[in-house]
């Protein structure tokens, strides 16, 4: 049994890292907004989905006017990533301005319900537009970076099976790492990042130190949504087919990753995302083997969430979270 698990390990790690990178960046959006407003922004999964659609729409337009043939795929990718992040960033900022800011002093539950409402609204708007334009809400974009690369893992150790990756795997990983490193630098080293951390700790005092709180909150939504939208593009490129409902379950898992890492903690969200992705792929590949076929690969979510529950029982503040002491 151990041998069979080891056989598939290289492929599991590659698939897990790809999925994990997607979870990690979407989780950043949840954790940033939670850190600053203590709001679980359920619409964030839909921002990710909108990003996937906007990116695919742009790629289809490029292909339609024949630019795809004349443009190197990397240039097309960079263009699409930039346009999509600006669009979804503004979308996130707009949602905050219209739906959350008027409720900032309302009870948390009200804002939470609003977030769920926004999430349904976005699903239906995207579905409506997609059907209007394409006659079908399930879209398949032009394939970029679809070449398969074989990895001779067996030459490293004979117990491993060879693995294969789509070349888009490298794109996903490279873009994800660039986004995470840049964000980490931005949060920890710049004036605006510092202002964000100050607002997260004490909004009123930050305002008294000349920090424009509304601007900082808008900025947080812009960055979180821009990253989420760009990840949507990566997802569409890696997995090909998208529909307006991909944001729901992926958002839920990304939120789980944020909780796993300690909600409000940026590095925790990154780690939690990668961990959840790898666990899920591990379960998908190995549950049938371990359970002698009783549990199929479709039980992977049960496995991943069971891990979450176990972690939270022993470390309720998450892996990287700090214990918060309620002062009386």
């Amino acid at each position, binding site marked *: 049994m151990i041998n069979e698990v080891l056989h598939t390990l290289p492929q599991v790690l590659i698939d897990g890292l790809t999925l994990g990178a997607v979870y990690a960046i979407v989780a950043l959006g949840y954790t940033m907004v939670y850190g600053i407003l203590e709001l679980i922004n359920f619409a964030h999964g839909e921002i990710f989905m909108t990003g996937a659609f906007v990116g695919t729409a742009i790629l289809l337009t490029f292909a339609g006017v024949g630019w795809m043939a004349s443009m190197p795929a990397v240039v097309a990718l960079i263009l699409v990533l930039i346009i999509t992040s600006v669009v979804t960033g503004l979308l996130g900022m707009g949602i905050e301005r219209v739906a959350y800011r008027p409720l900032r002093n309302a009870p948390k539950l009200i804002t939470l319900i609003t977030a769920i409402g926004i999430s349904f609204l976005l699903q239906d708007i995207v579905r409506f537009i997609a059907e209007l334009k394409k006659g079908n809400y399930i879209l398949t974009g032009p394939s970029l970076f679809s070449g398969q690369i074989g990895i001779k893992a067996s030459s490293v150790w004979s117990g491993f099976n060879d693995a294969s990756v789509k070349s888009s795997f490298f794109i996903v990983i490279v873009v994800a790492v660039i986004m995470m490193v840049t964000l980490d630098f931005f949060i920890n080293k*710049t004036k605006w990042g510092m202002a964000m951390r100050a607002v997260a700790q004490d909004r009123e005092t930050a305002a008294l*130190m000349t920090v424009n709180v509304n601007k900082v909150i808008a900025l947080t939504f812009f960055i979180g949504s821009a990253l989420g939208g760009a990840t949507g593009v990566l997802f569409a490129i890696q997995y090909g087919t998208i529909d307006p409902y991909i944001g729901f379950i992926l958002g839920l898992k990304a939120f789980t990753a944020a909780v796993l890492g300690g909600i409000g903690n940026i590095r925790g969200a990154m780690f939690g995302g990668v961990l959840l992705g790898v666990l899920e792929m591990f379960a998908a590949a190995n549950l049938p083997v371990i359970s002698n076929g009783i549990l199929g690969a479709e039980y992977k979510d049960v496995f991943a969430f069971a891990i979450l529950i176990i972690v939270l029982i022993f470390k309720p503040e998450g892996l990287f979270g700090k214990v918060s002491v309620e002062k009386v």
Partner: protein
Amino acid sequence: MSILTVKNLTKQFGGLVANSNINMEVQKGSITAVIGPNGAGKTTFFNMVTGVYQPTSGEILLNNESIVGLKPHQVTKKGIARTFQNIRLFGAITVLENVMIGMHNHLHGGLFSTILNLPRVRKEEKEARKEAYRLLEYVGLESFFNEEARNLPYGAQRKLEIARALATKPKVLLLDEPAAGMNPKETSELTKLIYNMRAELDLTIVLIEHDMKLVMEISEHIVVLDHGEKIAEGTPDEIRNNEKVIEAYLGKGAATTAS
């Protein structure tokens, strides 16, 4: 010359009148104390001056310019900084970063240039770091610069609040019970710091304080509040012998017995 003028300032919370018709003038370069028994409305008064609360009625003028209706960050930009009665530092970040937050408005890096991390922005952040360190030296906290703010001893946290307020380059500094919880040695250091700040940084200082020894020693002008109303103002000597003030602190009859 009066730098801060308050006219008929009133604040009501529902039926409770926290401040009622307060008039006062703070002279430029002076040290003014606002005193009064607990619940007299002193912190409410500070909160209105800094834009945290909007007054129900009345006017607040800084250099003859109204600041009523401005948001807290705008009031601070105009030149009024403050510290808090219950310390409100950003506990989870370093001492140096706490001071740098205060400089937020004086750094010119816009959002876009910050994201691109232009050399100009990088140079500015470096300068800010130096300036913040210099302010820490000024209040005597430079050895703690890389410590998380919540790990500092109490007296040091109060000084850090002052350094952070100075970082906003204020004209008027409001200190809300700066000596609370300090031991006599720390209090005498604080007294010296307040004198120095006024002399060297061209500051006007308004403080709320319960330590009467400190108040009588450093302030030139004292305003006394009780139940939200101004009951007296004057020099320390005048206040010390004012019957209404003694009554407010010790109850009716105390004034006559004492004299």
